[in-house]
């Protein structure tokens, strides 16, 4: 298993701060989510951090135990 972490308004959309998912390619994983959530997670402004490091989304594959965080733009001052 791997884990998705939702920050900011993405948490509201997902209904929880975290969600366990099967390891595997990110594309497959997104295809298995609710369409509204999957669309929000794929927005260009949402950045990704894999195990605490910012990563590009293209070709990403989650391994067992990975934590993938979805980071919407941070709030203004």
């Amino acid at each position, binding site marked *: 298993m791997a884990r998705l*972490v939702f*920050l*900011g*308004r993405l*948490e*509201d959309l997902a209904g929880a701060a975290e969600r366990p998912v099967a390891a595997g390619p990110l594309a497959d994983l997104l295809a298995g989510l609710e369409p509204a959530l999957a669309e929000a997670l794929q927005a260009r402004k949402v950045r990704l*951090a894999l*195990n*605490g490091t*910012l990563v590009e989304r293209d070709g990403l594959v989650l391994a067992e135990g990975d*934590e993938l*965080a979805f*980071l*919407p*733009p*941070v*709030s*203004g*001052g």
Partner: protein
Amino acid sequence: MAADVRLATEPFDPSAEIGTFARAHEAAGGVVSFLGQVRAGEGVEALELKHYEPLTLPGMRALAETTMARWPLAGLLILHRSGMMQPGEPIVLVCAAARHRRDAFAAADYAMDHLKSDSWFWKRERRGGAWHWIEPRAEDHADLARWG
């Protein structure tokens, strides 16, 4: 010397922090501090700041290093709350000590601009019983553009 960078999950006492910082940097001559607090009297009932452990504190530390490298500082404090806050409570405190006043002003100003726009905090407000996420602001990008 290293900067003092902290992420506080409980309320902190800004005047005590400033006092401790100023006494630790008596040789510096000038101490500039910025205190941001939850605005009272504007209908905000509560403010919540969420952070993401693996990024938030490391990001604040990186900002502190960049700031220390850019100006000749005697000391730098970056202290940020996360969690739930009431109106009037402190959110963020930045203190910069320097031999020259201008360096202390610039460093505190720079650190605040980048904290507001680059640091990994997501903020929501409760108004009329309902929570609302706070979006990024165009003004923050204008603030950043000042530093080239």
